[in-house]
Structures are given as C-alpha cells and as structure tokens.
C-alpha cells in the first residue's frame, strides 16, 4: 500500500472526528430528547409503582422483558460475527468488524438495563449481585435470573475488551494526529502504543485469545436468557428447543441490525470506498441461512407442541395461531420469512437496498417473536379462570422508544470519537473485492482453472 493510499484512508476515516455538521447536533438533540423522556417515564414509574405499566395479573412480564431479550439478541451481531470472521481469517471482514462490535457493547448495555427497569423495587437490584454483606445472604444460584447476571456481565466485559483491543493502534494514531486535550485523552486510551514489533505480536495474541473465548460466552448468554423461560412450568415456555432457538434468533436479528447500521454509516459518513456491495452480499448470504434456520426452529417448536397435544399448551398454540395474537404471529412470519427469504435468495435482489429492506422487516419480526414468546403464554396459563389480556401503556411504549433512540444516539456519539472502521486493519491488508464477481471475471477464473494441469 502506497503512502498516498494510507493518507487517503486516514483522511476519509478521521473526517467524522474532525468535522461536525449542524445535522449532527440536531440529531443528538432529537434523540437526546426522546432518551430524556424515557428516563422521565422510568422515574414516573418508580414513583407511582409499576402499576402505571400495562402488566397485570397474571401477565407479569411483557414489554420490558420483550425488550430485554430483543436487545440481548441484537448484541449477538457484533462480537460473534466479528470473532468468527477473525478466526476464519476472512479478509472481507476488516471494514465490518468494528461497527459490529460497537453494536454489541451498546445493545448489551441497553438490554442489561431492562431487568432493572422491570423490577418492582429497582433500587434494590444489587441484591442480584453476590457481594459480601454483613447479613451473609447470597443470591439464589438456582435461579436463571442470577445466571443472567453472571452471563451478561461476563459478556459485557469480554465484548468491551474485544472492542477495545483492536482500537488501541487507532487511538495511538489519533493521539499523534490531534492536538490539545483530545491528544491527552487519546494518549491515555492508547496505553502507550508505539507500534513496536513486540506490541503488535502481543496485540495479535490477545485478539486471538479473545476471539476464541468470546464465541462460547456469546452462545451461553442467549442460552441462559432462554432458560429464564424454559426453566419455569409455563405452557409453551417449558421447551427444550429454546436454547438453540434463542441463539439462532439472536444472531438473526443481530446480523439484520448490523446490515442496517452499516448501510446508514456508509451513507452518512460517505464510506462508499470501504463498505462495498460485497460486504452486504456476504452478510446477506449469512442472513439467508439464519432466515432458513429461524423458519425451521419456529416450525419444529410449533410442530412438537401440536403433536404433544397437551391441553394447556394447545390453548396458547391456538391463541397465537388463530386467536387474538394471530395478527402479530402472522406479521412475524411475514417479516421474518416471507419477505426476506426471496429477497436474500435471489441474487439480483441481494443488493444493498434489498439487504436493508430484508433486515428492517427482520428487526420488526424478531421483536414480535420475543413478545409472542413472553405474553400469550402468561395470559393463557393452566387455569382458564385466570386467563388475561395485555395492553401496553404509554410508560412502556415511551421507555421502549427511548431505548431505540438511545442505541442510535450512542452509536452516533461513538462514531464522533472513534473511527468506525479499523484504520490499521485496513492498512494491513486489502479489504476484499470491492464489487461482486462479474461474468467476465468468472469466465477468467474458469479459464484459469481449466488451464491448470
């Protein structure tokens, strides 16, 4: 790579950090207002009690737990994809990894808020933490909620490290390029990086270890989230498929979230030279596989329930299939399978626009899936005497909207302080073929293949 090319990379990727338009301030003000409204709604809920939300006997979990599972699912985009792509040494990964890892960290932070938001007495949430107290009371380690605490905190620590490690050389670059107080801040963050051979070796080794370690952690996190449901004898929750079903759904919605984020970054930060159609094409193929996997899991989950024909489970089954929740159920099927499947499987449609359309419906569909797991089962438990229905209240809707705004806000702010594409990794190697293989190239490859002895 020539010096000129490297300077172009520096200029392109550091531009968002150095120049800020008025649109950015407007966006931050707009999103910040929504987030503040959500915070006010939460304070209102704490003040008057959780009765201001729509949850009711016997539906004790609803929007907040839906959001919790959804955001933890979105968090599987980054670390898992990035770790796998690093481990298999896919060269096209280079511009993709950081924007994926950032999603993980922020989605996890937001997701981890929800178990606290939904508590009856949120100010006592620290009782879930095994801290040494004079009363010598520990959390109940038989409870999946206690496992949640360990799983999420481990994943958050790991994914933050995983995001931070490959950013160190970029922080060093920023330290050397900027002046004033920003130079000092990036100097601290760069941890004295000088780019010596020894430092490069250590960084590579550390990233390799993290990439290997983070994959089982990520899988365990969503399995444990699924245990929140499957460990209790509630019809349709008590299912053995929930572990893989949740992990598959998490990766599914995670990739969709990543594709949307990449498309927005590409447009807003003018990264057309770095995020190519081939990246969307490859992630689209991955998404296609997850669509099929999701369809299969949903089908077998329903099939085994129908075949088992237990009366309590069939009540929930028909409630979602043709009862009051059926509009949501079939919207979910359309969003998660009927729309994305043809878009992603037909090569001509698997463009950037196509991938973004498919991803948008998938994000909606996956949120509905989480809702349909939580609510219909609780409203249609064993005793018909105590069946109930649920309507979300303004507080819940506002807090939910605020978390989506918070995600975009955190992402936008992060893009202002850290380059969204790993600069040094781009310089290390090329970033894949910028376009899809053309017919002429294909023929050339075939000719080469035939020419070989």
């Amino acid at each position, binding site marked *: 790579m020539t010096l000129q090319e490297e300077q172009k990379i520096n200029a392109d990727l550091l531009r968002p950090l150095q120049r800020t338009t008025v649109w950015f301030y407007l966006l931050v003000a707009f999103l910040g207002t929504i987030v503040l409204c959500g915070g006010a709604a939460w304070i209102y809920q704490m003040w*008057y*009690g*959780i*009765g201001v939300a729509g*949850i*009711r*006997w*016997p*539906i*004790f*979990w609803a929007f907040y737990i839906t959001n919790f599972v959804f955001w933890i699912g979105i968090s599987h985009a980054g670390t898992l994809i990035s770790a796998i792509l690093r481990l298999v040494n896919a060269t096209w990964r280079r511009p993709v990894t950081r924007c994926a890892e950032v999603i993980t960290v922020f989605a996890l932070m937001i997701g981890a808020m929800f*178990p606290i938001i*939904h*508590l*009856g*007495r*949120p100010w*006592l*949430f620290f*009782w*879930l933490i095994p801290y040494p107290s004079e009363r010598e*009371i520990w*959390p*109940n380690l*038989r*409870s*999946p*909620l*206690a496992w949640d*605490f360990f799983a999420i905190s481990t994943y958050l620590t790991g994914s933050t490290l995983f995001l931070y490690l490959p950013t160190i050389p970029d922080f060093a670059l920023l330290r050397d390029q900027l002046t004033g107080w920003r130079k000092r801040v990036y100097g601290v963050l760069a941890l004295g990086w000088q780019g010596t051979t020894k430092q490069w070796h250590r960084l590579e080794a550390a990233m390799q270890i993290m990439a290997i370690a983070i994959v089982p952690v990520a899988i365990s996190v969503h399995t444990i989230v699924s245990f*929140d449901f499957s*460990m*209790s*004898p*509630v019809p349709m929750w008590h299912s053995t498929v929930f572990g893989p079903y949740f992990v598959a759904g998490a990766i599914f919605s995670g990739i969709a979230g990543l594709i949307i984020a990449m498309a927005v970054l590409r447009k807003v930060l003018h990264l057309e030279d770095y995020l190519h159609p081939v990246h969307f094409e490859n992630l689209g193929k991955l998404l296609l596989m997850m669509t099929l996997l999701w369809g299969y899991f949903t089908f077998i989950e329903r099939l085994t329930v129908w075949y088992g024909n237990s009366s309590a489970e069939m009540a929930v089954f028909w409630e979602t299939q043709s009862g009051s929740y059926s509009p949501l159920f079939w919207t979910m099927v359309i969003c998660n399978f009927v729309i994305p499947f043809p878009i992603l499987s037909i090569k001509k449609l698997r463009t950037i626009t196509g991938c973004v359309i498919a991803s948008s419906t998938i994000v909606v569909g996956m949120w509905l899936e989480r809702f349909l797991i939580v609510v219909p089962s*609780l409203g249609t*438990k*064993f*005793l018909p*005497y*105590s069946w*109930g229905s649920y309507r979300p209240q303004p507080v819940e809707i506002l807090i939910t909207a605020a978390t989506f705004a918070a995600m975009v806000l955190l992402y936008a702010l992060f893009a202002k302080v850290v380059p969204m594409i790993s600069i040094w990794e781009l310089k290390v190697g090329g970033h894949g073929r910028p376009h899809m293989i053309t017919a002429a190239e294909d023929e050339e490859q075939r000719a080469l293949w035939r020419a070989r002895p």
Partner: protein
Amino acid sequence: MTHRWGMAVDLDRCTGCEACVTACRTENNVRIAGPEESAKGRSIAWIRVERYYEGDFPDVRVKFRPVMCQQCDAAPCEPVCPTYASHHSEEGLNAQIYNRCIGTRYCANACPYNVRFFNFGNPVWDRPLDLPLNPDVSVREVGVVEKCTFCTQRISAGKDQAKAEGRELRDGEIKPACVQSCPTSALVFGDLNDPESAVSMLSRSSRGTKLMDDLGTQPKVTYLKKEY
C-alpha cells in the same frame, strides 16, 4: 417432630359464599384495589373462589373451587427467585420474605395456580377500612410479591400458646382465617405429619385429588370430590 401444614378442601361442602375470601382479606391486611384498579388487574386475593359452569341453559350447574396457595413440596416458585425471598420453610410452607423481594415477579410467572400477587401500587385503605388492620401482619410495600401463608401468624401464636402451657399442639387448635370463617366447614387445616389429624385422614381418603397433579408440584392442599 416438625410440623407439615396442609389443608383439605371439601368441594362437596363449598357453597361459594366467599366468607373465606373476606376473612383472609381482613386477617392478612390484603390491599383493596377498588373497581377501576381491579379491572386493570391490580386486585389481590390470597384465596379466591373459582366458578365453573356445567351444562347448557337452563340445566346449568355451578361449581366452586376455592384456590389458595397450594404450598407445594416441589414448588416452581422457589428455585426461580434470585434473592431467596421465596423459599421453603422448615414446616413445609412456601414462605415469602417481603423485605427480601425485589419484584422480579418470576415466582408469580412460574406458579401454575396463579396464586402469587404483585403490589402494583402503594397500599391504601380508605377510611374506615384501615381500622381493622391486623397488627400481627406486615403491610406490603409497592413492588413486592405476596401470597397466602396459611396464616403463619396464627400458626406461631398457636405454637407459642401450646409451649406456654407445656403441652403438645392439639389437632384443629390452629385455624387460618379462611378455615375459621367457613360456615360449612369445607376447609380443614392441620398437621400432615400427624397421621391421626383430620386433615391427614381427609388427604388420604379416596375422594382426594390434587389440583394439576400431573405437573409434579406436590401440593399440600387436597381437594375432596363429591361423595356418591
């Protein structure tokens, strides 16, 4: 010998008068929600009388089933509580420590009988309903899950009385509020560890069934079906 408290409910005797519901409410300081709040699912009733209808009009028969906490030996609510607020007492009760509850409501979801209730708001009693509040029972704060305890305050009072008089507890000496107020004696309470107690004998009778026995929760409440 430790006690193992249980109850027998004679469905053939229950007339659905709901005296047990009222008595329980007064004894245990159960909060009053009012019609609007109740319609939103905010009401709490530690014991309820479920009504089921049989047959078509005009040949309709109504059946009543009082449902309170079944005090399961293998209670699904207990292992899921992350803070041990819901736990098994030495005398086999599914005890709930209100101070320790942080309101995850996981126990209430896991309970197949839906007999755990959540305080959606701060408890209020309009005058003069605040006057009969029971000083032996705590008033539960907002955000806390509560439930039937077989009137644990009456159990300890009965045990203390027997100890003070230097004798063994007599069968039927301890009566939870619902049992005491039942005009047809449909509810029988006692020690299942005492083979001679009335509740033991009724629980062993061929009329006895457990509510949703197939779930394996091993409830200590036995429902007695009709005697033919």
